[in-house]
C-alpha cells in the first residue's frame, strides 16, 4: 500500500494514459501542491474541524467501485471512464476538465483532478430521449483509502435524460479510527434545448471526509433540475454550481441535508447568470441535531447585460438541539438592472403551535416531532421524479429521524 500523494505516486497510477490526460493531471497536481491546506482562518472554513483528516495516512490507490444500471439505446454512451477514454477518446477530450479546470484554485478539487481514477461517461446524442433513468452507484471501499470518482455528462441539443448518482460506503467509527478521503467531481453539459433530470445523494460511512464539486453549463432553452441529498460522512463540503450560458436556460436546484452527531456540512451553491433571460431557483433545507454543524453559502451572480434574469434562492434550517451551529450566508452580486433577484434564509426550531396541533390530535410528542421534521423536508423530496429513488430518500430520512 502506497501512502502519500506525490508526483511519483501520480505518475505510477497514470502511466499508459494519453498524453493530454496526463498533462491535465500534471497541471492539477501543481495546483494542489501550490495551495495551502484550508485552515480555520479562511472564512469558508472557519466552522470546520479537519484535524482528523491526515493526508499522509491515506493510501493513494483509488478504491471506488462503480455499478451502472439502465438501458441505453440510439447511440447513448453510458460507460466507465476508462472505457470511454479508449473508445470515445475524442469526445472525452472535448469535455473533460472544461468545467472544472485543472488550475482552479481549490485544494481538493485539484487533488481529485490529478488522481481521479474511476468514473462514468454519459453521452446523450442529439434529440434522443432516454426514458428510463441512468443509475450510477459509486461504492467507496477500504480503510484509510481515497476515492476520486469523476462523472462527465453531455446532453446534446434537444436530448433528455434522467441521471441518478449515489455515493455510499467508506469507513465507520467502528473501524479502529480508520478514515476515508473522498473527492468527487461532476461536469454536466446541457446543450441548447436539452433537459437533464439529476438526482444525487450520499450516505457515506461516518468516518468519511468528502469534497464534492458539481458544475453544470446550461445552454439556450436548456433545463436542468437537480435534487441532492446529504446524509452520511463525518465532513462534507458540497460545491454545486450552474452556469446559465444561453437565453431561456433554467436551473432548479434542491437539496436536503440531515446533520446529526458531530457531522459537519458545508454547502456552497452558485447560480451564475452569464446570459440574460435565464431562470434559476434554489431551495436547500437542512435539519440539524446533536452537535452538528452546517454552513450554507449561496451566491447568485448576475453578469453585466444579463438582463431578464430571474433568480431565487432560499436556505431553510431547522435546529433541534442547543449544541448545533448553523450558519447561513446568501449572497447576491448583481451587475444588470433589468432583473429580479431575491433570496431568503431562515433558522428556526419546531413551532410550538404546530406541535400543539398534532398533540391535540392524539400524537405522542415524539411522533409529532417526527411528522414535523419529515414534513419540513418534504418539499424537496416532492421534486424527485423517480419513484424508487424518492423512496430511498424518504427511508434514509425516516431512519435518521427515528434514530434507527
Amino acid at each position, binding site marked *: 500500500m502506497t501512502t502519500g500523494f506525490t508526483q511519483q505516486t501520480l505518475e505510477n497510477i497514470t502511466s499508459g494514459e494519453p498524453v493530454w490526460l496526463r498533462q491535465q493531471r500534471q497541471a492539477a497536481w501543481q495546483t494542489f501542491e501550490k495551495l495551502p491546506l484550508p485552515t480555520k482562518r479562511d472564512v469558508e472554513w472557519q466552522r470546520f474541524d479537519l484535524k482528523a483528516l491526515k493526508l499522509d495516512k491515506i493510501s493513494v490507490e483509488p478504491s471506488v467501485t462503480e455499478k451502472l444500471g439502465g438501458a441505453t439505446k440510439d447511440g447513448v454512451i453510458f460507460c466507465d471512464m476508462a472505457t470511454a477514454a479508449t473508445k470515445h477518446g475524442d469526445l472525452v477530450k472535448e469535455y473533460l476538465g472544461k468545467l472544472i479546470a485543472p488550475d482552479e484554485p481549490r485544494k481538493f478539487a485539484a487533488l481529485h483532478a490529478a488522481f481521479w481514477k474511476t468514473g462514468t461517461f454519459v453521452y446523450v446524442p442529439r434529440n434522443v430521449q432516454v426514458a428510463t433513468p441512468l443509475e450510477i452507484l459509486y461504492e467507496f471501499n477500504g480503510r484509510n483509502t481515497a476515492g476520486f470518482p469523476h462523472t462527465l455528462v453531455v446532453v446534446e441539443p434537444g436530448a433528455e435524460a434522467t441521471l441518478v448518482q449515489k455515493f455510499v460506503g467508506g469507513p465507520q467509527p467502528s473501524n479502529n479510527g480508520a478514515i476515508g478521503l473522498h473527492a468527487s467531481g461532476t461536469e454536466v453539459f446541457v446543450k441548447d434545448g436539452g433537459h437533464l433530470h439529476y438526482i444525487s445523494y450520499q450516505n457515506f460511512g461516518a468516518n468519511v471526509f468528502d469534497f464534492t464539486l458539481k458544475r453544470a453549463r446550461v445552454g439556450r432553452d436548456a433545463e436542468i433540475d437537480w435534487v441532492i441529498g446529504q446524509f452520511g460522512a463525518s465532513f462534507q463540503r458540497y460545491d454545486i454550481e450552474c452556469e446559465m450560458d444561453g437565453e431561456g436556460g433554467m436551473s432548479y436546484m434542491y437539496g436536503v441535508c440531515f446533520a446529526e452527531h458531530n457531522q459537519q456540512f458545508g454547502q456552497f451553491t452558485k447560480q451564475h447568470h452569464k446570459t440574460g433571460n435565464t431562470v434559476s431557483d434554489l431551495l436547500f433545507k437542512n435539519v440539524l441535531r446533536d452537535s452538528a454543524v452546517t454552513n450554507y453559502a449561496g451566491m447568485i451572480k448576475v453578469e453585466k447585460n444579463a438582463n431578464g434574469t430571474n433568480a431565487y434562492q432560499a436556505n431553510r434550517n431547522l435546529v433541534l438541539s442547543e449544541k448545533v451551529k448553523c450558519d*447561513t450566508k446568501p449572497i447576491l452580486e448583481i451587475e444588470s438592472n433589468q432583473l429580479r433577484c431575491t433570496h431568503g434564509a431562515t433558522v428556526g426550531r419546531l413551532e410550538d403551535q404546530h406541535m400543539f396541533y398534532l398533540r391535540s390530535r392524539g400524537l405522542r410528542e415524539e411522533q409529532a416531532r417526527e411528522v414535523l421534521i419529515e414534513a419540513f423536508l418534504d418539499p424537496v423530496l416532492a421534486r424527485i421524479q423517480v419513484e424508487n429513488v424518492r423512496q430511498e430518500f424518504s427511508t434514509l430520512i425516516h431512519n435518521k429521524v427515528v434514530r434507527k
Partner: protein
Amino acid sequence: MSTELLHGTYKEGFHDDLKAVRKVPKGLSHEVVDYMSDVKNEPDWMRQFRHRSLDLFKKQELPAWLPGLRDEINFDEITYYVSPVEKSARRWEDVPEDIRRTYDKLGIAKEEQKLLGGLGAQIDSEMAYHNIQESLAKKGVIFLSCDDGMKEFPEIFKEHFAKAIPPEDNKFAALNSAFWSGGSFVYIPKGVKCDIPLSVYFRINAEQFGQFERTLIICDDDSFCHYVEGCSAPVYTTHSLHAAVVEIFVKERARCRYTTIQNWSTDVYNLVTKRAFAYKGAVMEWVDGNLGSKRTVKYPSVYMVGEGAHGEILSLASADKNMWQDAGAKLVFHAPNCTGRINSKSISGHGGRASYRGLVQMNPAAKDCRVQVNCDALILDPQSRTDTYPTMEVDGDLATVEHEASVSNVSEEQIFYLMSRGIKKEDAVSMIVNGFIEPIVKELPMEFAVEINRLINLQMEGSVG
C-alpha cells in the same frame, strides 16, 4: 449625468481658505501622537493608549474582503492633525469669523440651535463649537467635545472609553485610537428624557486630511437621547480619510437613537466603526443614511448584552457615480429574550455600487431571541452594481433568524401606470424611488428627510432615458 453636473449639484463641495492654527507634517508617526497629546494636554494613560494603538495599526492587516483599499489609500500622504481653531467655543460669537462663514454657507447657523437640544460643529481635527440648551444642562445632560469630556469627567470617561471598540478591533479603529480628536461626549443621567435632538456637524476643509473624531455616548438607566450627525467636505482632486469611532452604552431600559446623514464628497474614504451595547430592556436604534463619499465601509452594530434588549438598524445607501457604499449592519445577541431588526434599502445608479454586508450572530445565551433582516436593492442602470453579503451564525436551537433580500429595477409597468395618469416619466421614476426609501426616510428628522429627498432627486436626474 456628467461629473460636472454632479459636482455642480453637490452644494457642499466648496472649500474655504482657513488658516491652520496647528498642523502636523503629513504621515503617521509616534512624534505626531506625542505632539497631539502635548497640545491637548492629555493625561498619561491617553498618551500611552495612543502609542499602543499606532503600533496595533501598523501590525494589523486589512481584511481580504475589503478589496482595493490597500492600494488606494496612501497613509503617508495624509495629514493626521489640522486645527483651524484654538479651542472649542461655547458661544457662537466666539467661533472665529471665517469658520462661522463656512458654517453659514452650509446652512448651520446659530438659529438652528432653536430646534436642537445641543449643537456641535467640528472642522478638521477640532470642535469649533459645542453648546447645549440651558434646560438640558440643568437636568445634568452633558454634551461636550470628546476632548473636554475626558478632562471634565475623567472617571465616567475612562470607565467607558474604548470598552465597546478597543483598538484591537480593526485596523481603522486602531488608527482612530491613535489620532482621535474631536467628536462628542454625551452623558444622559438616570431617568432624563432628552426630547430634542443633540446634533453635530462634521466638516472636512483641509486637503489630503484624515478626520478621526471619536464619540462616546452614555445613556444611563431609563433615559432617552436622540443624537444626529451630518457631514460634508470640499471637492478636491486628492483623497481624504474619515475614520470615526462611535461607542454607545445604552443602560437598563434606556433608549438611544443615533441618526447619521453622511454626505461626504466623492474624495473621502469613509471608514467608520460604530457599536452600541444595549443592556437589560434597552433599545438602541441606528438610522444610517449614506449618500456621499468615494467609499464607505460602515456597519453600525448593536450588541445585546442584557435580557430583553432591542436593536434596530435602518440603513439607507445611495451609490451614485464614483461611489461604493459598503454599508450594512450587525446584531450580536448575548442575552435571552432580545429582539432585533435590520431594514436596509439601497439604490445604485450612474455606475455606483451599493453593497449590503451584515452579520447576525446568536450566541448560546441568546435564548428565545428573534431577529428579522430585510434588504432591498434598487438598481437603476446597467453600469451600476449591487451586492448582498449577509452572514447569519446561529449556535443552538433557541433563536429564530429570518433574512430576506431582493434586487429589482424600476419596472416598466410601474412607470407605465404613473405615466398613464399623466405624470412625466422622470417624475414617475422619482416617485417610485422615493416610495422605495420612504420607510426609512420617514424615521428621519424633518429637515433631514427633506434634504434626503432633494439629494435622491438630484442623483436620479437623467437616469431614465
